[in-house]
């Protein structure tokens, strides 16, 4: 088990506030699996301006982003530990079979479990699940993250 604190996640991912949607890595198995948490707070930008009658479910798009970032940490940190150099910008390439089975609200802590299936050059295939209190809320059958040189963007 390896814990990676929030500040150190910033040495691995280029994302910054407020789109850095991972708080802490609680388990890390190089090249295999990661468990990371993200606490949902009512002070997130997505809750600005919402009154009492609004639906406060945390946006699924941000849950997917958060899960994807956990996968990004798994990939990039594993590569760094192997001494591999990766340059370029991390891009969400594609995903398949995302199923939403629940909702998460301010006060919940999202727990992401992501497995790295394979890496082909600058492309990483992963799958994962977002849980709240061990209840799955979003499952991602497969997703592909890619590194693209800034000139190619």
């Amino acid at each position: 088990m390896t814990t990676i604190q929030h500040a150190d996640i910033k040495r691995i991912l280029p994302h910054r506030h407020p789109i850095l949607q991972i708080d802490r890595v609680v388990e890390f198995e190089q090249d295999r699996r990661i468990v990371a948490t993200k606490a949902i707070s009512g002070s997130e930008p997505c809750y600005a301006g919402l009154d009492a009658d609004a639906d406060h479910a945390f946006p699924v798009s941000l849950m997917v982003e958060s899960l994807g970032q956990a996968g990004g940490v798994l990939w990039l940190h594993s590569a760094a530990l192997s001494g591999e150099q990766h340059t370029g910008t991390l891009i969400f390439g594609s995903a398949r079979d995302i199923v939403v089975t629940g909702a998460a609200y301010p006060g919940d802590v999202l727990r992401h479990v992501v497995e790295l299936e394979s890496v082909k050059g600058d492309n990483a295939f992963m799958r994962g699940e977002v849980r709240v209190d061990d209840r799955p809320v979003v499952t991602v059958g497969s997703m592909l993250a890619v590194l693209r040189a800034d000139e190619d963007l």
Partner: protein
Amino acid sequence: MYASPLSAVDKTEIGADGTVTAIKDIVADDPYLAGHYPHFTIYPGVFTIETVLQAARAALEVDGATAHLVGITSVHFKAPLLPGDRLTADLTMDRSTEAPSIVRVKAKCHRADGQSCGRITLALRVRP
């Protein structure tokens, strides 16, 4: 009203055949974009999903109905979106006869220069 990361639809047009076209101008000072990324702003792929989702919800949440995302069958991103660009998403929406509360949305997204920036297929559950 519901929580969303940003307003991902600036304008919506409904075609005669029921297709919904949503337009979003990409601006660097939208919420969340400051961190994506500090060295180079690029519209997050998940926000393209938001554009499609918000457009679909607006079209379906009429007369008190609510529409919630139940799944994203597939999403493929192509050319990236940068500030100053315009995202246009053309949505077709179908209800399945076997499960009439489920609406399947297929969206083709492109940039101002016409290049495809993504294809998204998702499903919403509509409750009256």
